[in-house]
């Protein structure tokens, strides 16, 4: 989230699209209720289902899953056509005026440079014209035909209300009502917030869904302001934290990136990462990359990382592909190329698409280790449960270790919520049985491996033998020790750059925040964006001052928000080009003639002059990007693409399937179904009574929602002779499940591209362990294909068939 949950009360319009906050994030959704009750804010819901969020909305519009870009592009076009643009903001704070290279274009659903064989674009024309001074060429009058603004208008031209209706199934009058309500937020004194979740990410063009809304928000001037922003509600309690800390194949901590084979040494690695400003005087904060990277390497390998060995750069593994993401790993596993797998608090046979493939893959492992507080289907994937897990146990040769861990109540530590608040919690109870902290288990495996390398030697033991593991009890690093490492400290005296005789941070002291990090090896820091979380003041994540001066919703004294305790990202953009708040009643920070002051930590250098330095300090341009250059694999503008399994053809290019540059493995391509075979458009979602696959282990939640079901419309039920509460079989090209049918008015057929499209809704909370009745989930059916930029599986849009059926059978147990 760019903003905080508590900031939503400041909005005038909430758009929930690609999420269902009332059910999936109920206590955060209260801030929507607050805004409605006390500000007169309105709520719009655009969703294939009439959800509980929709039930309290001011306006609901249905949409076919996977067609969000067409809808959002339509809204952008409406706003531009009707002059509903925050002109000053758009001109000053976006790249609308930047001139794009000749050659870039878009035709038949494809951008310039498409290579069908490689399923990739040559993106060399997707860039700015660079002048002789080395800066991007701009035309502030926006008259140049090749400026971003004019190219955007051209790109959006086809997205008329009629096209939106044809593609999305949203009736034209409903679309226009939504567009009109959104367009009102183009005035500087009216803001809109976007609340989205996995309804937007789990698509083969998920990144572009989000990008489309971000562009709309920029055109309306709603980024960086109170009650505005792009608010990813996110899933798990610390999914933000694990992303920030880089527990992903392509990441290091704090959005530093893993080296690839192109990065032959440290200098080469750095050469593509210290971004020079593309406009005069801009911050381009990634120019500090080297300070964060060297401090990270020092946190990892301490004294073994030296300037002479390029800070132990060769200790890091180097990627030969963009990422060994989970889809790639399970493809390799299914091909017999993976021997071992560790699953820490993760249940892949329910969480990943195409369960049959996941089960087959796990069956080919030599060993698997699971670490969980609860039973999981994954740790028992080899166990036969009749229809619910129909496997041949004896033929599965995987050795499995099921390790019991503590749960939240039994540990100290911090979790980062979607609003980027790092909140500390304290241990309340003793672990049951022999359950152990994850950090203890990890330490044990590591120390035992290190001991084996010490005794026996082996393949490149250096990064293991030299890994910094300096804890009072090396068998169990404490949360406090780890948090302090994340924050970073001086390894030798750090001198004040303005006065070299003065010590800024004495050796061994915690740095105050990342502004004190150095690229000479004198500081270490596990994760630069978190620096400041535990400095010499103490544990800032444990702060509990809930005062909120002038009720802005900022709560600066409550725990710690990254970066630098900043609560609203890009908050410099809450003020105009001269530094005055766009809306005086919603001031965040203002320029007082010498510095920025206000309710939040300024997202700009405190003395940066407003006319000179742009608000988007992480970008080389200093402004935001309506045109993404070559940074997204599937286009610098969002373009309509159908899901890989769609009930209709792409109206821009009827031969094009899915996202033209998304990676599809051959065996998965063969398992994509067609609408002739599988006529119904399925989607997956959560229920308010359950959290993923955990709460089926709780008796209360299991009693509230005991049994797997699917939701269909009355029209489809009638067509297929399906009874309310009767058993149905739902199947895709990849699998089959049995469920109780819930026939509901909440789902209605849509007319798309001239034909009716029926939607099948599949909630995701059941398996074969726990207190609830045994059942299935949508991932038994979903397609094994991911987003073109980040490989998030397309679990929100796939094709199925449905018929009346009988109850599934469990394994017969001989008593």
């Amino acid at each position, binding site marked *: 989230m760019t903003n905080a949950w*508590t900031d939503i009360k400041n909005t005038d319009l909430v758009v929930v699209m690609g999420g269902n906050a009332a059910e999936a994030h109920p*206590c955060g959704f*209260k801030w929507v209720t607050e805004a409605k009750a006390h500000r007169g804010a309105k709520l719009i819901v655009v969703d294939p289902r009439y959800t509980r969020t929709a039930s309290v909305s001011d306006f609901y519009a249905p949409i076919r899953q996977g067609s969000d870009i067409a809808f959002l592009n339509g809204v952008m076009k409406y706003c531009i056509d009707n002059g509903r643009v925050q002109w000053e903001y758009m001109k000053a704070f976006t790249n609308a005026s930047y001139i794009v290279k000749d050659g870039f274009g878009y035709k038949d659903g494809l951008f310039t440079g498409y290579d069908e064989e490689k399923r990739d674009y040559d993106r060399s024309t997707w860039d700015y014209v660079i002048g002789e001074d080395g800066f991007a060429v701009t035309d502030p009058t926006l008259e140049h035909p090749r400026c971003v603004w004019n190219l955007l208008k051209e790109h959006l031209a086809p997205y008329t209300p009629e096209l939106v209706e044809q593609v999305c199934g949203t009736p034209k009058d409903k679309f226009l009502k939504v567009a009109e309500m959104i367009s009102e937020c183009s005035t500087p004194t009216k803001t809109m917030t976007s609340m989205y979740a996995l309804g937007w990410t789990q698509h083969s063009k998920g990144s572009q869904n989000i990008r489309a809304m971000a562009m709309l928000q920029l055109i309306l001037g709603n980024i960086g302001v109170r009650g505005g922003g792009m608010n990813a*509600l996110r899933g798990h*309690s610390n999914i933000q934290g*694990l*992303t920030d*800390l880089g*527990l*992903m*194949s392509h990441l290091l901590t704090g959005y530093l990136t*893993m080296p690839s*084979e192109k990065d032959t040494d440290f200098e080469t690695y750095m050469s593509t990462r210290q971004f020079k400003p593309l406009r005069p005087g801009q911050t381009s904060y990634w120019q500090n990359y080297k300070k964060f990277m060297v401090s990270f390497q020092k946190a990892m390998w301490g004294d073994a990382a030296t300037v002479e060995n390029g800070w132990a750069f060769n200790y890091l*593994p180097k*990627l*030969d592909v963009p990422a*060994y993401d*989970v889809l*790639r790993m399970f493809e*390799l596993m299914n091909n017999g190329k993976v021997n*071992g797998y*560790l699953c*820490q*608090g993760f249940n892949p046979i329910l969480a990943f698409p195409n369960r049959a493939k996941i089960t087959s893959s796990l069956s080919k492992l*030599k060993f698997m280790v699971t670490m969980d507080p*609860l039973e999981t289907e994954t740790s028992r994937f080899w166990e036969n449960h009749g229809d619910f897990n129909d496997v041949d146990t*004896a*033929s*599965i040769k995987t050795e*499995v*270790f*099921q390790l019991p861990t503590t*749960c939240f*109540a039994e540990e100290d530590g911090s*979790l980062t919520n979607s*609003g980027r608040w790092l*909140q500390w919690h*304290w*241990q*309340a109870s*003793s672990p049951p049985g*022999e359950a152990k902290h994850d*950090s203890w288990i*990890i330490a044990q495996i*590591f120390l035992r*491996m290190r001991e084996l390398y010490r005794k026996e030697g082996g393949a490149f033991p250096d*990064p293991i033998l030299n890994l910094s593991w300096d804890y009072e009890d090396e068998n169990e690093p404490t*949360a406090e020790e*780890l948090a302090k490492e994340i924050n970073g400290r001086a390894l030798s005296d750090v001198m004040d750059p303005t006065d070299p005789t003065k010590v800024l941070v004495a050796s061994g002291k915690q740095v105050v925040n990342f502004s004190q990090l150095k690229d000479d090896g004198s500081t270490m820091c*596990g994760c630069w964006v978190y620096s400041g979380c535990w400095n010499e003041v103490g544990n800032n994540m*444990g702060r*509990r001052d*809930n005062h909120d001066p002038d009720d802005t919703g900022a709560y600066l004294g409550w725990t710690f928000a990254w970066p630098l305790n900043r609560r609203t990202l890009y908050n410099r953009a809450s003020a105009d080009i001269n530094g005055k708040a766009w809306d005086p009643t919603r001031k965040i920070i203002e320029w007082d003639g010498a510095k920025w002051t206000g309710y939040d930590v300024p997202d700009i250098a405190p003395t940066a002059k407003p006319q000179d330095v742009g608000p988007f300090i992480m970008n080389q341009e200093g402004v935001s990007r309506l045109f993404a250059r070559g940074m997204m694999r599937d286009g610098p503008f969002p373009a309509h693409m159908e899901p890989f399994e769609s009930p209709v053809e792409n109206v821009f290019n009827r031969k094009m399937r899915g996202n033209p540059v998304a990676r599809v493995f051959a065996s998965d391509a063969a398992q994509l179904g067609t609408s002739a075979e599988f006529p119904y458009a399925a989607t997956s979602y959560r229920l*308010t009574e359950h*959290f993923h696959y955990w709460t089926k*282990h*709780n008796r209360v*939640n299991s009693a509230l929602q005991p049994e797997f079901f699917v939701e269909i419309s009355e029209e489809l039920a009638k067509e297929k002779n399906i009874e309310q509460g009767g058993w149905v079989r739902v199947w895709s090209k990849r699998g089959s499940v049995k469920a109780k049918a819930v026939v509901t008015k909440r789902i209605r057929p849509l007319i798309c591209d001239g034909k009716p499209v029926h939607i099948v809704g599949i909630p995701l909370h059941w398996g074969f362990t726990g*207190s609830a009745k045994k059942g299935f989930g949508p991932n038994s059916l979903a397609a094994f294909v991911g987003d073109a930029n980040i*490989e998030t599986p397309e679990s929100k849009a796939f094709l199925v068939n449905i018929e009346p059926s009988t109850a599934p059978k469990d394994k017969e147990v001989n008593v």
Partner: protein
Amino acid sequence: MNMDLSRRSFMKLAGAGVAATSLCAMGFSEAEAAEVAHVRAFKLATTTETRQTCPYCSVACGIIIYSKGDVRKGDHAEVVHIEGDVDHPTNRGTLCPKGAALKDFVKSPTRLLYPMHRKPGADTFERMSWDEALDRIARLMKDDRDANLLLKNEKGLDVNRWTTTGMLAASATSNETAWATFKFAKSIGIVGFDNQARV
């Protein structure tokens, strides 16, 4: 504990005050006073309160866990009650149907208690000691790493890439656990490393 005066001790003080005043004012006899002394104390007054965060969605509501026993004093502590934290700016004491039933997660009948091991082809788990399990896991991992770590690519560049063992980290673990896990996985060369943010 992170509060100077916890709500529990406040209630104790207040409760004692009320009892003393009422007894005097109403002139209870000794027998009556003895009877009053038998009234069961407010259940939560004897518990330890701990500030916590709901582990489910990323709204991260504040909660208070009430335990019998205090882990900070080295006691064995059991959760007896969980409720919303009224001081928390986001949830202000409210909880959803999941958060309100959190105690059931901590006390679930399917909580795992012991390391379990499944031999290849076996149809049951068997108990295993921690030492045995961890030694065997370390052995299996080292053997696989030694056999399959790709030290150099075809151009002779150090790549130190281990693709034959992968790891999924849990996005419900703390940042501190995550950092320890990160150090472990990246230093041993695992590249097939993701968390729920990928899906």
